[in-house]
């Protein structure tokens, strides 16, 4: 087992990557075969991610599953070092779950299915890599690997929105998403190089996050330096986390993407941004982080309220969920910015919770759209009588989104509020009010779409397919499990949050 533990992280990056490459050589017209193959690969990834999560020793804490491959020696000092703490282990599990779910429900991709799964698996590998590496260069590398396939996935397999009031082409959404994320990564890259140069000035030129973290702890990087570097990370990663006012790529991107991509995008990719702020911003430039946290929590609060109010005025199912993601990521940003052990823990739990919840919502909207070919909530009505299971799952996801106790979102939001109340009282009060706004738009959505007399137009509808039901049901069970007994997750989170500087 010891030996296996050492290569577990390398495997979880390598398997989807190799799977993507292998899939390229499969015949292009064998749609089912490539789907089965992708399921096997994603299933292996899920099993590995679960293994890592379960085997992480929360009693010991710290970074585990360590492994390192030399690449460029000093003075550049870039190595592929891998290790996870509780936060990364949890997010790797999240990616494992959502990747598998996304692949499973993509059985109906008929246009160039092989290329679709190649890109999807590459994206998955990039996300696993970002969560597992301990080297800034490779962090950036995997980060880009996760972002690039998104452009093609949306641009090629996406759908355009043609609405009474406005029109959004999928190419527009894909381009916007890509330009935004690239602009963000440029900032991150400048920040990484600045940190490298700063460390070199202190005599330790390295990209190793471990060494850099220790340098910061020893006060080798001046506060002034940290204070101008942190905003690069905050904004750069913040773009991916949907931080206001850099959020507009996110609803458009969600809406245009095909279902599996929406799930991965909102479920996992946005978490990369928040993860980057924690892992790079808070650890490597902690004093800078501390100085900027009032700004971050203010922006987070704006996210919460602005996203919720925007969602209230939307009429497209996916836009509502897209803006609700903006709102919910606000809780993540707020939680991080509290620098409070409960608040940051809440932020991490919220990443997981929101990932599952929003992936489930996109899955269900995808199922509805496949059958009705519309997402307009003023046209859809009374779906509950035709699509009972879909409606039931949607209601549960919606309730989780409202922060209903017994479901995962409540524990996470509650912890964020708890942390924020003792650090930033007025903003915390505003955020609690924002949580109530969620109820307004979710209930409006549920009432318009699912409740009421069923419309003659939708007489022919069938309920979700068995695969969709199975994946959706699994997500629902996860949300209930976390909502009722969050301790197994919090054990990992607590010990790792405790080790973060400044908390």
């Amino acid at each position, binding site marked *: 087992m010891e030996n296996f533990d050492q290569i577990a992280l390398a495997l979880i990056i390598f398997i989807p990557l190799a799977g993507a490459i292998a899939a390229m050589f499969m015949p292009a017209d064998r749609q089912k075969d490539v789907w089965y193959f992708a399921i096997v690969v994603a299933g292996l990834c899920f099993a590995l991610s679960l293994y890592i999560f379960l085997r992480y020793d929360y009693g010991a804490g710290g970074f585990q599953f360590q492994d390192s491959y030399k690449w460029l020696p000093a003075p550049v000092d870039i190595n592929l070092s891998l290790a996870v703490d509780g936060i990364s282990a949890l997010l790797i599990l999240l990616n494992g779950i959502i990747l598998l779910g996304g692949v499973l429900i993509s059985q109906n991709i008929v246009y160039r299915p092989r290329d679709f799964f190649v890109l999807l698996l590459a994206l998955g590998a990039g996300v696993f890599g970002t969560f597992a590496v301990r080297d800034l260069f490779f962090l950036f590398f995997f980060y880009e690997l996760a972002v690039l396939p998104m452009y093609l996935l949306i641009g090629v397999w996406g759908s355009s929105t043609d609405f009474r009031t406005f029109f959004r082409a999928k190419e527009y959404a894909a381009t916007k998403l890509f330009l935004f994320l690239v602009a963000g990564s440029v900032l991150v890259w400048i920040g990484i190089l600045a940190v490298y140069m700063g460390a070199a000035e202190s005599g330790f030129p390295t990209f190793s996050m471990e060494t850099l973290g220790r340098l910061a702890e020893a006060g080798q990087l001046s506060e002034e330096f940290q204070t101008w570097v942190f905003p690069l990370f905050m904004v750069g990663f913040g773009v991916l986390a949907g931080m206001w006012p850099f959020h507009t790529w996110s609803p458009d991107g969600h809406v245009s993407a095909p279902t599996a991509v929406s799930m991965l995008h909102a479920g996992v990719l946005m978490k990369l941004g928040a993860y980057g702020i924690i892992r790079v911003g808070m650890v490597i430039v902690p004093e800078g982080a501390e100085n900027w946290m009032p700004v971050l929590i203010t922006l987070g609060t704006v996210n919460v309220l602005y996203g919720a*109010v925007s969602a209230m*005025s939307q009429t497209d199912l996916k836009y509502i969920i897209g803006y609700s993601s903006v709102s919910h990521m606000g809780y993540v940003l707020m939680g991080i910015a509290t620098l*409070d052990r409960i608040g940051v823990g809440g932020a991490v739990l919220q990443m997981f919770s929101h990932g599952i919840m929003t992936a489930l919502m996109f899955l269900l909207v995808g199922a509805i759209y496949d059958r009705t070919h519309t997402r307009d909530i003023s046209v859809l009505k009374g779906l509950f009588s035709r699509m009972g299971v879909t409606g039931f799952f949607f209601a549960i996801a919606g309730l989780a989104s409202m922060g209903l106790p*017994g479901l995962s979102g409540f524990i996470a939001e509650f912890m964020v509020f708890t942390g924020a109340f003792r650090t930033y009282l007025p903003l915390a009060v505003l955020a*609690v009010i924002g949580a109530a706004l969620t109820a307004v738009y979710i209930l409006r959505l549920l009432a318009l779409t699912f*409740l*009421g007399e069923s419309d003659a137009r939708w007489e022919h509808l069938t309920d979700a397919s068995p695969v969709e039901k199975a994946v959706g049901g699994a997500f629902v069970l996860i949300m209930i499990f976390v909502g009722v007994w969050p*301790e197994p997750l919090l054990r990992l989170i607590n010990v790792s949050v405790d080790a973060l500087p400044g908390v």
Partner: protein
Amino acid sequence: MEWAWLIPVFSFAAAPLIVVLGRVLPGSGSFLAILAIAAGFALFWWVFAGFLGAGAGTENCLVSAHTGTLTCHYQMAWFHAGLAGAAGSVALTWGIIVDPLTVAMLGLVTFVALMVQIYSLGYMRGDSRFGWYYAVHALFAAAMLTLVLADNFLLLYVAWELVGICSYLLIGFWHERPAAKEAAKKAFIVTRIGDVGMLIGILLIWREVGSFSMFDAFEAVSSGAMTEGVTTVAALLLFLGAMGKSAQFPFHVWLPDAMEGPTPVSALIHAATMVVAGVFLVARVYPIFSAYDGDALLVVAVIGLITALMASTIALVSVDLKRILAYSTISHLGLMMLSLGAFGYTAAIFHLLAHGFAKALLFLGAGSVMHGTDELDIRKMGGLRKVMPMTAFLFSLGALSLGGIPILSGFWSKDEILLAVNDHLNPAFIILALLTAFLSAMYMARAMFVTFFGNLRQEMEHAHESPASMIGPMALLGVLAAVFGFVGFNWPGSYQGIGSFLFFHEAEGFHFNWWLGILSMILAVGAFVLGYLIYIKDRVSLEGFRARIGGLIPVVENKYYFDEAYQWVVDRVVLVFANFIGLFDRIVINDLAVNGPANSVHRLGIAMRLHVTGHVYSYAMGMVLGTIALSIFWWFRSVS
């Protein structure tokens, strides 16, 4: 007694079982819900007996310094927020309190829920979502039972929200009807607004105390660690939550609309769950409300009085039987709040229990009327006692009890409230409270006489009495509505009356103020006699009275225009603002700030493109012009 936590667990377990197995089980699994709540009711008696036998020396039990009553406390770990043991982290628990308040509430909730569920067997028979009904019902009861057992604010809030969502599901049970759908949404959102205040209050206490335990909060209040200002603000924030759930002014608007749900649901919501949660909350955290001379309690009293008066006037002009009962509930909840505000802790809970039994009976009676006649408009009824004798008798019993006719239970509990108000508050309060008591007897008389007495209308001759599964539970509730008041007396033996069982700090014996008792008796009996003369004998005409207050009647009939005002705010303020932000996001942030730079680059590219024409003569022209310009430039330079 340490097994009290099982009471809600039975019903919690029943709910998912019914959802999953409902299709294959006989009766859609309804018997599971009934068995679960019956087990809870049986266990209640076990807990009750155990509690009466316990003393300060019993393990886990002590006489609380904050409430003065015997309090037993059991808990187990739930989760840690923050690393266990580290500074600033907190361990959350699943914990229960067993004290007199909890015991009383457990009895009320399990009994009423059991009666309502048995009654529903008949009432809901044949409904296409019969199993779902019982599943949500079980969950509803479980949530309410957890609420009354919770020992910490987090668990309390968890249960509180679950109660809210279950009410949403049950009120909107017939969601194909637009009115039911709207009513469910309204109930959830209005109570949610109160809940926001409550959550802020809980977190504020957390900020001050560093714990979610109620005992820690009480300790901080009594030791002065929580200052007067913070304590009062926290109490008022918690009260916001109570106002939402207990439908206090100005949050009362959801309750009458909640009549859109199946009638047994109304009985449950109005009598045992949901609406009494607010009153229970104030009673549960009474040490916080009553601290520092009870500044917060004055607000409670005023809100309660306004609510009671307002609702009883509306009840007097409503024509829908269920709505009359709904406004009556609001009015009685107001009285309970008034009582709590007047330091009448025992009286409030006493009335809560007595009202619970009577109101459940009345709603089940209204359901029986609806079952038999498919009608709820009292103007179309009359003389129903001839075709539905049992329903008429039991409904009348409930109405007389709630109206405060002596020796029925409502008389005793209402009297205790009047006494508390008289003892502790300004005389204006007692006058208005007596007026409310009179009005409440009046609208009860009206509902009872108009519906069941007088001449039977022809179109009502087809009406039929309800089956035994419906009448049986009503009869049991009827017994309690009649005699429950006697628990207030000083009985010989170990039970010394409710005042020495359920009290705040000081045990009180039964007291009866003769002048107040006789006055309220005269008012109640007078109201019923007056009602009889007006609605049956037609001896007293209301025309003169109506003419004199003519302008006011439409105001009351339109429920003081609260709905209209709220609708205006939602349409004209909230939605307009949301649309503004939506457009702002699209136009300013997206089109201007995001597409703007992209478009500028695009336009710049188009402009720049113009000079690349591909024609040799235009390039030659440019070269010539450039040469001339340079020559002129150099010439000027050499000159200067």
